[in-house]
């Protein structure tokens, strides 16, 4: 029997991690993710989990210790945010390259400088090509559900890849919502027993992890990893199907909201999707066919399915809560454009950068964008492709 509670996003994720009950966790505090580990370590201190904690001296060591622990042979998780994720950067590629299914909730926060502890997506976007699977979550419920599914997905024998579960810092991590928890044993049965491929602790079969690979093989290993990515989509969908059976909640590669017959649409990640949906309803009430697409599996990116879902629209705005410096567009915009590239008939695309460093994303922002899209759909004319919104001139 599911249990309904009022909890913050961090609290929900900490509870999911308690229910998963990993063998080892290594973590270093960083706002706004600290709260997850504080809650989790209180489970450790009170014997609610079997987890052995490694309270490391940096995020670099956190990921390094997770890599050692995972290769040793067991279930491993950590949590981080912002600068912490940036400090782990080197090790992220090693975790995925060694094919270690470590799970890591990432509480999205802006990157320095200037120093800022509030929400944007610069941290996880910077790690998007590190070979980790990325699941993004609109609210505490999704963060909870994604955290549980992340273990099943990453540990799937066809995949064996690490998984990040992203949720918005403070907006979700520290806000209380209504959340449905699964029963402990439902989670336990859902994720099943963990079995590591070639564990170091199997002393009878000594294996070597992390060899030097010369040009004669490096490319083959990269190709093999690319090939694994293509298998993730099916595994994510299968996990969602199984998860629906125990939770009644539906998940896919992305969520569409009133998109089927829409003419204009927004593409937006995480918590801001919720605000946008309300505004879309208002536009619908006025007879304007607006819709929304909210990516969930952001890495690997389901280009084909996303393009297919958006191709019939007249105008689409991709809202990025991170910029990709270098005179380019936001990272999500680049992916959405790519997903539509192969279609001859496709929507006109614009890109808005919003909500950096915790700047509020308000209904009027969505309204402004939807009005602009209505105009573009009518005139087929675009003033500026990329623009910052909610910023002073």
């Amino acid at each position, binding site marked *: 029997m599911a249990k309904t509670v009022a909890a913050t996003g961090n609290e929900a994720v900490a509870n999911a991690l308690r229910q998963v009950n990993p*063998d*080892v966790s*290594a973590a270093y505090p960083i706002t706004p993710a600290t709260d997850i580990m504080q809650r989790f370590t209180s489970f450790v201190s009170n014997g609610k989990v*079997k*987890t*052995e904690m*490694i*309270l*490391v*001296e*940096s995020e*670099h*060591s*956190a990921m*390094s*210790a*997770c*890599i*050692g*622990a*995972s*290769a*040793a*042979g*067991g279930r*491993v998780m950590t949590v981080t945010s912002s600068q912490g994720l940036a400090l782990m950067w*080197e*090790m992220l590629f*090693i975790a995925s390259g*060694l094919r270690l299914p470590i799970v890591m909730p990432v509480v999205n926060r802006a990157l320095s400088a200037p120093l800022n502890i509030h929400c944007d997506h610069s941290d996880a976007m910077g790690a998007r090509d590190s070979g980790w699977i990325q699941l993004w979550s609109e609210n505490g419920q999704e963060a909870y559900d994604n955290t549980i599914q992340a273990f099943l997905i990453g540990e799937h024998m066809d995949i064996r890849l690490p998984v990040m579960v992203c949720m918005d810092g403070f907006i979700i991590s520290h806000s209380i919502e209504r959340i449905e928890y699964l029963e402990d044993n439902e989670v336990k049965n859902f994720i099943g027993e963990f079995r590591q491929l070639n564990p*170091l*602790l*199997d*002393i009878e079969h*000594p*294996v*070597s*992890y*992390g*060899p*030097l*690979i*010369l040009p004669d*093989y490096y490319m083959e290993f990269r190709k093999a990893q690319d090939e694994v990515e293509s298998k993730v989509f099916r595994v994510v969908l299968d996990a969602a199907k199984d998860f629906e059976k125990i939770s009644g909640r539906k998940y896919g590669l992305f969520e569409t909201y009133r998109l089927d017959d829409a003419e204009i649409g927004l593409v937006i990640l995480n918590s801001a999707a919720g605000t946008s949906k309300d505004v879309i309803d208002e536009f619908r009430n006025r007879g304007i066919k607006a819709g929304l697409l909210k990516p969930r599996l952001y890495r690997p990116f389901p280009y084909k399915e996303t393009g297919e879902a958006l191709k019939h629209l007249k105008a689409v705005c991709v809202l990025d809560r991170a910029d990709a410096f270098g005179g380019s567009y936001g990272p999500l915009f680049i992916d959405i454009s790519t997903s539509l590239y192969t279609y001859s008939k496709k929507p006109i695309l614009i890109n808005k950068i919003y909500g950096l460093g915790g700047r509020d994303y308000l209904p009027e922002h969505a309204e402004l964008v939807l009005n602009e899209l209505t105009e573009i759909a009518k005139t087929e004319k675009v003033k500026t492709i990329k623009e910052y919104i909610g910023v002073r001139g």
Partner: protein
Amino acid sequence: MARPLSLKEISKKEVLISSGHRMCAGCGAPTVIKMVLLASDYPIIAATATGCLEVSTCISDYTAWKIPWIHSAFENAAATISGVETMYRSLKKQGVISKEIKFVAFGGDGGTYDIGLQSLSGAVERGHDMLYICYDNQAYMNTGIQRSSATPRGADTTTMPAGSVVPGKTEPRKNLTRIMAAHDLPYAAQASPSHWMDLMKKVRKAFDIKGPKFMNILSPCNRGWRSRTDEAIMLSRLAVETCHWPLYEVEYGVTKITFKPKEKKPIVDFLKPQGRFKHLFKPENEWMIKKLQEDIDREWERLQKEASLSAP
């Protein structure tokens, strides 16, 4: 456990690092590793920092390691092995594993004194049951003989080459063994492959102590030291006999000098055979040799004083 340390007996054991590794001819490191592995009576799992040892012993599709082994990056051998050790403790507590296993991390001086110092300090403070071994060849040898904080004063390296203005490295070496002992860890020691019995005894002792242990082992590099390929053991012996590399241990805060040279040789005996110190013998650089000797005398004095204070 107290098996006598006789070579006749030890030679019957399987050496757990194989031939076919690609360390340079005459490198000190494989000998150091071999001695460490031979000294253990327990099954061992090792982590290795990026460096000469790592790239040369595990080049796909080949591994010279006959024990479970992991390399992940340069600065994190201690953090990596702490993860392995913690998983072992977790699974042991859960009853999944029952065997007694020991955990070792190997790092060069770059990966230990410099880029990996934080990771090592953290792992030691956390109290993991592991032995960290630094094979100290006194410079970044894997990337081509660059200066490290373990490089002795005066040495010529590719990033502090001896020139008309700069006489090689101008600063003294970092005293890492002391820094590690200052962590108040159960066991820290310095060893040299020339004194193999001393080295292996220390490894054995370390494995029998619970908690974090650190050993700093001198590992001559003929490419970087500009010496002959047959001199690794000879030079490590001279390092000990000149007190450039004193052999001692600090066990629960008690310092013990484990080998006292009958007659302390002058540092020039250690410097002479090495091309990296060649320029010091020019008249204008002689002051550097004097300084080097002073560094050594001071540390040897200090060490003796510390040992006498600790003496029962």
